[in-house]
């Protein structure tokens, strides 16, 4: 294969995944949290594609495409929730989802 080997791609994938995880854990705006979740899923997708290339079978690509659809589904619901909350004029802050305390 031309260019860098599979491990290099995996490194990027892990980096993306962890970056996204940090975003989910540390950010407070639900919109950015949702975006960070997308980053996490994309990191996983990159790993899947890289492994798919490594093994030369299409399972990983199938998986990745399914993940895209699922991510879209999550986004629909997540954005729906955010919009509904915005309509209720709730404070959009994950850490201060007011009445519920962890």
């Amino acid at each position: 294969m031309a260019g860098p080997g599979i491990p290099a791609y995996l490194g990027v994938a892990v980096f993306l995944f962890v970056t996204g995880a940090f975003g989910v854990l540390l950010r407070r705006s639900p919109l950015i949290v949702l975006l960070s979740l997308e980053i996490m899923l994309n990191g996983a997708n990159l790993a899947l594609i890289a492994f798919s290339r490594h093994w030369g079978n299409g399972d990983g690509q199938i998986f990745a495409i399914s993940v895209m659809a699922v991510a879209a589904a999550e986004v629909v619901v997540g954005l729906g929730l955010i919009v509904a909350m915005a309509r209720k004029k709730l404070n959009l802050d994950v850490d201060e989802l007011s009445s519920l305390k962890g």
Partner: protein
Amino acid sequence: MSLLAVTAVGNVLVWAVWVLAVATCIGTGLLVVTRTNPFHSALALIGNLGSLAVLYLLLSSEFVAAAQVLVYAGAVMVMFLFVIAYLGGKADAPWIGGRTWHQAASAVAGLAILVNVLVAIGMAAGGSLKHEAQLDQVFGSPSEIGRLFLTDHLLAFEVTSIVLLIAAVGGVVLGSHARRSEAEDAAALAAGEQV
């Protein structure tokens, strides 16, 4: 196989593209989670998705790369941008708030994962990941993806559509105006507030 990879010049080109794509990918990834304005984050995510599509191409997965652009950049991101526009792109301070120990624990756990997986990949790089398989002609092509979806992964294909359907129902349910909130909106209007 991509045409780019045929010659030695091609190889250099692949490296260059790879470095560029990875740099974009990492840079935009960081931007997504660090920007205060969700609008900027969303734009960064588009760049991130685009650079990932390039990486997918380099990995000979043309169809996935296309899907990435169409589905993500074309559909998901549009939704995001609509919602952000609707909400007015409210900014928030990136790293403030929450319990300190919670943040610290998250940071430690996240770094632990990073180190762990990197070490694992490093170890695997010298071992099982050393030699990738020879690709056949159809690898990553739309026809191959279509064949897999209709044979080995028929069930996954169907289930994916169910998940999307459920999400659609959810979108309708959550997006619908309830009567009471309309009444509230009216009351708020009457009170001279901005809705």
